[in-house]
């Protein structure tokens, strides 16, 4: 098994992030340029702009709002593409600023319990691996729990992340009860004085009520040992996802009290524009973004960088 964590890492992460974000945002930027080159901000231009925003996964409501906001001050005036982009980026930054908050770990909890949830394949296990690396490097005593007892080789996958990051993994055989595993992991984390316990869970679609009930059971058994646990419930979202992300957040939030989001795969061509709509509707903090498959590819979420790159501006 090749280790991906080392490859292409040393190029300087900011450059990579910029390149990735620029790549992923060029379409919207180009679109704006297309609409506003030598043109008034009239109804037709606004409608086109609105569509472009929708086409970046911002959703109909948020897009309409952004376009209307622009029209307030600039309607029927001559505008340059640059001006439109900058103005939109400023608006989006303002919307996202309140949700850009890193994950705060309370060392007094011993352990601070983080339950990681989300639909299938979004990057939960990988994100746990990355978080484990970050936190272990920051000197924290971390433990992982292989709570995905369903998917083939999910346990082994997390165990490899444990080896890579030098962090112990609590695991049982596949098919074991996930809630029981979580309970035992918390017991062991307490016993061994871990400061941070990251619990992986099987991917599940939010509309599968029986699977969501299973997740609620995990929360319940954790509370038996520590009423305040889990201290964070991280919902992992895939930047490639379209409007369904809104449903995902709404349901997971309702059923397992999600406290924050991580958005993965922002190194791809997807823009993650749905995040803007999410910030509007749910106001959940975005703790970090994933920009690759390696252990170091987790970044703090910056509202301005995200907004500017979304609009095709220099980050």
């Amino acid at each position: 098994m090749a280790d991906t964590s080392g490859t292409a890492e040393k190029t300087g992460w900011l450059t990579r992030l910029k390149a990735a974000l620029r790549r992923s945002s060029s379409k919207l930027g180009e679109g704006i340029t297309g609409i506003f080159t030598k043109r008034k901000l009239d109804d037709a231009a606004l409608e086109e702009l609105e569509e472009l925003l929708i086409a970046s996964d911002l959703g109909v409501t948020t897009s309409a709002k952004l376009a209307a906001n622009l029209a307030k001050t600039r309607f029927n005036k001559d505008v340059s593409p640059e001006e439109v982009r900058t103005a939109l980026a400023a608006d989006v930054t303002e919307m996202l600023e309140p949700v850009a908050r890193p994950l705060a770990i309370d060392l007094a909890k011993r352990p601070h319990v983080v339950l990681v949830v989300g639909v299938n394949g979004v990057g939960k296990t990988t994100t746990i691996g990355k978080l484990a690396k970050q936190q272990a490097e920051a000197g924290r005593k971390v433990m992982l729990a292989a709570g995905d007892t369903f998917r083939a080789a999910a346990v082994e996958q997390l165990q490899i992340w444990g080896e890579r990051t030098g962090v112990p993994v609590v695991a049982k055989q596949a098919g074991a009860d996930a809630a029981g595993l979580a309970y035992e992991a918390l017991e062991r984390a307490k016993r061994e004085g871990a400061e941070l316990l990251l619990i992986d869970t099987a991917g599940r679609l939010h509309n599968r009520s029986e699977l969501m009930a299973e997740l609620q059971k995990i929360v319940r058994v954790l509370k038996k040992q520590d009423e305040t646990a889990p201290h964070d419930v991280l919902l992992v979202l895939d930047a490639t996802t379209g409007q369904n992300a809104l449903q995902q957040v709404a349901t997971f939030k309702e059923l397992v009290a999600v406290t924050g989001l991580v958005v993965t795969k922002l190194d791809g061509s997807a823009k993650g524009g749905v995040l803007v709509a999410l910030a509007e509707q749910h106001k959940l903090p975005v703790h970090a973004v994933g920009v690759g498959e390696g252990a170091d590819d987790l970044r703090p979420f910056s509202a301005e960088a995200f907004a500017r790159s979304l609009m095709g501006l220099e980050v």
Partner: protein
Amino acid sequence: MFDGLQSRLNDVFSKLTRRGSLSADDVNAALREVRVALLEADVALPVVKDFVEGVREKAVGQEVLRSVTPGQQVVKIVHDHLVEMLGGTPGAEEEAAREGRFGGAAADIDLNAPAPIPILMVGLQGSGKTTTTGKIAKRLSDKQRKKVLMASLDVRRPAAQHQLKVIGEQIGVATLPIVPGENPVAIAKRALSAARLEGYDVVLLDTAGRLAIDEELMAEVAAVRDAARPHETLLVADAMTGQDAVNVAQAFEERVGLTGIALTRVDGDARGGAALSMKTVTGKPIKLLGTGEKMDALEPFHPERVAGRILGMGDIVSLVEKAAETIEQDEAEAMAKRLEKGRFDLNDMYKQLQQLTKMGGLKSMMKMLPGLGGMQDRLKNAKVDDKVVKRQMAIISSMTRQERAHPEVIKASRRQRIAKGSGTSVPEVNKLLKQFAETQRMVKKVKKMGGMQGLMGGGGPGGGMEGLLPGGGQGGAMPGGLPPGFGGGMGGGGNRMMRRAGRRK
């Protein structure tokens, strides 16, 4: 939230009372709504534009049929165009169902090649390649009696090769032994030579997830293609994908060359506009749908079903799944048998009302039924809520056993007694009995039509289930006619859906 193209269009046309042909203005107004509806369903912008132009050509000047509203007419045009764009023939599914065939599926994996047939699975990270590889292998080996070999070329993700091995053990399909350190091209070559030597019919090559813009990895998969010369190359993509679907599909088509698309996580509640985006930009058929994590959760692609879903016309499959989740199967089968024989009495009606409340009530069901977008609004306007269902259950509870089995004996004095006993009124009892009679008539009619299947497959606007709702919207809209639809679907035509509704664990 989005409540279906139908109700949007009803709004657009509400002012339009005159009949005749659809004018350019009418069509333009409607198309604006269509455009937004498609974008909200995650259909990519360039595809939406194309699509809307196609609809415009078909719609302008068309006669509005007397029996439908202009809104319904446009929805029908949009729906049919969508089905065609997705690779189907409008109405084919309904026709197949009527003839008792399982039909409407557009394309399937092609095995018309000398063995061993290489099939290459590609796609973004986490899209479901490995799982779908297992599902296809299982189907080919169980149903088509093929000797299948699976090989994982994923040397990147932790435990990826092990994942495929475990799946192979679960489904009883061979996997190529793992040789640590071997590169993907070498693994592909080894898989093919092993397949030739050991007489395999099909070799499934699972690859690592990769971003369409990752030059290095796209070159790697192109090299694998050159080495393996796959007969099928399937892009595995998530039904929840947003606007990026076009970029991804285009990139994989250009760099690797696709023969088809497998859409996963169709068991979710995403509208699935990505299906249209990817089909349109690549011109390649969607061949398979992934409908769950389990190895048997694989289905042929049904354009009409996906079209209905993109347009927010409800998802009959979700409805059946929900029914399967909440309703005792024995009871459902018993009921289906009775319905097939055209039998339906007040006991049946009571059971159905009971099931309806178990399923989370009328409103949640309405959302899932195709062609009922408008109905939902009408129900809202009529202030019908689930309390009505409760009252109706109370009425039936107050009847004697004989009355329930032979409703024709319920004359005036009995009606008074029943109203009193249930704390309702005689008009309410009358209404219930009238609706019962209508439903009974409907059940008999359905029997004549050859069972429920003909009604389940429809999904088209204005047709299908809507016809099953007696007096819908006239103040007392009541579910009397609804439950036979799913009751019958459960036991009869819906058997296939029942199976896929099976839960994991």
